[in-house]
């Protein structure tokens, strides 16, 4: 292990923070040294977000002191924390969609001439920083709203780098990145480490934490449980520290394949589906009781495929058969109310999945108002029944169904999205990266739920940017590249190597 300086750059002593009397952090002692990459582990609700929000000035602690390089500090705003050299990349991106990439990268301190923003210097600066994160293909003049989620995360990283951090906090900053970008980020973090920058790395992907961090801290229920050097504990021990108990196998067992599965009429059949330049003739079948994965690098048309099937895109060409009937649904409303009902758990739960300000109950009912109405009015008794069914089925932990859905943790929010769609009893379920930014425990619940649904005879089409999920969950995986399926893998053929090879389209189909 590399020797690190002895004075911690950030030191917490007895930090506590409460929300309406509920403990988010209590008596936390925590230290982080310069020149280290420090992984923060814990389930959602363990207090990780509160910890970094205090560090970055978004929240103030109710008790305790925080020291930065030995000096007691108290940040009233993110601006103050930034000025002190603490830069945070939040899971909810801090980019402004209507401004250009260059504007965003230099947002609070642009290069100036005669007091006015020097646009040319700003574009040059953006180009340099984008080159540093190996994203030269991003046009600094493009608006952020025109970029995909993974490109936005890379812009966010370039922006953070440009602020010359002493402490860099990455909160699920790699959740939507492609494996190539992740490699780039690893390289950057190691460079920063050599320069004495302390990085705090928060990720739910165990293998990322394992590959990158030198020190790990585990949090549980608002308390700091333990800090130790990487390698001192096995993965199993770490997971036990995180959830406070042993866990059984991460993925539920797959049923042995029925020999007639291929010959049976698929519930969802897709032939030469194309849309603009993003989809170039996708062929795909999903049968009853099957979980079919969509693999490949980010941005190869997986998301567009799901949106096209759900009726969101216009001018889609190709043949789609849903439950024996041909035709692409004309809208989400049509897709979810046809004879063979379809549901889509979207990419971004905060904008497309949920109405954040509305109650949990309203969100749960949003897709099924038609089923619980009598004439123009809602049948309140039926609504209550449906809500308690939905909450029970997914074991969503809530105080009151009338609370706004934004008061829930990320994992529980995602469960609300899933529960909403399960209420319409869909036959085909489309999942767009449903476990992004969700804690291990909830992930496992979602995997189990997917398998249960498949066993009930539903057809599931599942996109994930995490190979381990595709390997663990899917009966078959179709890998997309350039808007086409380049490889179909089944059963034990699905391995990390085969998926990576297919994603890069280096043809190992014989393997």
């Amino acid at each position: 292990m590399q020797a690190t300086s002895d004075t911690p750059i950030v030191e917490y002593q007895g930090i506590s923070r409460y929300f309406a009397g509920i403990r988010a952090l209590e008596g936390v002692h925590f230290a982080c040294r310069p020149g280290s990459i420090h992984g923060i582990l814990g389930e959602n609700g363990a207090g990780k977000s509160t910890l970094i929000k205090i560090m970055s000035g978004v929240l103030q602690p109710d008790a305790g002191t925080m020291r930065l390089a030995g000096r007691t500090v108290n940040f009233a705003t993110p601006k103050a924390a930034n000025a002190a050299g603490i830069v945070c990349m939040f899971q909810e991106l801090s980019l402004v969609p209507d401004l250009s990439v260059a504007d965003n990268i230099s947002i609070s301190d642009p290069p100036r001439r005669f007091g006015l923003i020097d646009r040319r210097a700003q574009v040059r600066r953006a180009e340099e920083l984008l080159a540093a994160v190996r994203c030269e293909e991003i046009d600094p003049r493009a608006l952020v709203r025109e970029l995909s989620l993974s490109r936005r995360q890379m812009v966010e990283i370039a922006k953070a780098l440009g602020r010359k951090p002493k402490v860099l906090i990455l909160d699920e900053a790699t959740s939507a990145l492609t494996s190539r970008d992740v490699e780039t980020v690893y390289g950057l973090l190691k460079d920063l480490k050599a320069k004495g920058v302390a990085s705090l790395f928060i990720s739910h992907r165990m293998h990322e934490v394992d590959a990158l961090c030198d020190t790990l801290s585990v949090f549980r229920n608002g308390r700091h449980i333990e800090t130790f050097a990487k390698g001192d504990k096995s993965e199993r021990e770490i997971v036990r520290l995180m959830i406070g108990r042993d866990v059984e196998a991460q993925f539920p067992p797959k049923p042995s394949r029925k020999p007639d599965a291929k010959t049976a009429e698929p519930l969802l059949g897709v032939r030469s589906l194309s849309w603009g330049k993003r989809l170039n003739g996708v062929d795909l079948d999903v049968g009853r009781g099957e979980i079919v994965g969509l693999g490949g690098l980010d941005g190869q048309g997986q998301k567009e495929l799901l949106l096209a099937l759900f009726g969101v895109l216009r001018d889609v060409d190709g043949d789609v058969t849903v439950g024996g009937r041909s035709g692409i649904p004309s809208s989400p409303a049509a897709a979810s109310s046809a004879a063979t009902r379809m549901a889509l758990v979207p990419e971004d739960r905060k904008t497309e999945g949920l109405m954040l300000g509305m109650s949990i109950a309203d969100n749960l009912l949003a897709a099924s108002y038609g089923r619980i109405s009598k004439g123009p009015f809602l049948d309140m008794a039926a609504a209550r029944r449906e809500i308690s069914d939905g909450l029970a089925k997914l074991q969503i932990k809530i105080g009151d169904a009338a609370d706004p859905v934004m008061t829930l943790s990320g994992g529980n929010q995602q469960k609300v999205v899933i529960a909403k769609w399960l209420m319409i009893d869909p036959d085909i379920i489309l999942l767009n990266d449903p476990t992004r930014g969700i804690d291990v425990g909830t992930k496992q619940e979602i995997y189990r739920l997917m398998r249960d649904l498949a066993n009930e005879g539903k057809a599931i089409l599942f996109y994930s940017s995490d190979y381990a999920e595709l390997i663990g969950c899917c009966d078959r995986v179709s890998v997309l590249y350039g808007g086409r399926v380049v490889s179909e893998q089944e059963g034990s053929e699905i391995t990390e190597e085969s998926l990576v090879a297919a994603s890069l389209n280096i043809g190992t189909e014989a393997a």
Partner: protein
Amino acid sequence: MTTASLGRWLSRNMGFSAALLLLAILFLTYNSLHPRGFSSAVAIQNANETVAIAFVAMAQTLPVLLGGLDLSVGAVMTLTNCVASEVLHGSPLQIVFGVGLTLLTGTLFGFMNGCIVVYGRIQPIIATLATGAVAIGLALLIRPKPGGNVDDDLSWALTNSVWDLADTYGFAEGGEAWWIRPFADIPVPFLIVVIVATLVWVPFRRSVIGRTVYAIGSAEGAAYMSGLPIQRAKIVAFTLGGFLASCGGLYLAIQTSSGNADIQQAGAYTLNSIAAVVLGGTSLLGGTGGAIGSLVGAMILRVISFYFRILDIDPLLQPLIEGLVLLTAVSFGVFRTLRVRNQLDLFR
């Protein structure tokens, strides 16, 4: 500019480009139909009647970019109009002082609006509804009856051509100097609007504060997390709005040589300013657009009303026809949605 970057500019500024095209068509048609079309006299008359709404529309742009609305712009214009009608006379020094006082009144009023919105945490639309009424009340105290005393030379010089301006104040050889000849026929009010827009808007757009205003309208949370000066930007936006509204009030006093605390007029200016902002391609959701677009929007609104002078239309039909034209113009924005192929983009 390369073709590619021009293409991008056009696709990002569809609303503004469409407004500019519409204005060009309306203006050229108007002048072709007018018996004395394309003359300096017509241009001067048109420009004079456009200045006040142009300034008020630019003032309205700033709160709209933040994602709010300022219902006090018309009232602030009226208040400063009344203030100006009291102070724009006497020695040159006194007149300069009067101009300063008028602009200061509007600027302070805007500053007050900003402070109420930021520190009082009241939504702009309701805060300015209240302060707008206060502004009208103050205007009525200053000028219970229409009237006033505005320096005649000032009034003449600023409401005619550049030649008249030079002639009145005897500079550039009374307007005969070679270097002023090419500009001699340009209406002074037009120049005033262009100069103020350039001196105020261009630096604002390229300052961190200006960028913060756009960022707030686009994603306030992200702006906060990025450490941008949110509160300061909001206050500056409203203050600048107040300043621009007072430019409108000041010019109205010079143009009419009087002040008038007219409640109906204040309300009409406020509503028209919102129409002009939308016509000019600024989104009511905030974050995109700009004051130059609003300036074009204001000109479109005025040109439409000029048509009633030369065409034989029953004046009673004017509001009806203006409403229909506005509706048609605004519905050009629909073309954007026809090209959208991912329907989720409609909601972004």
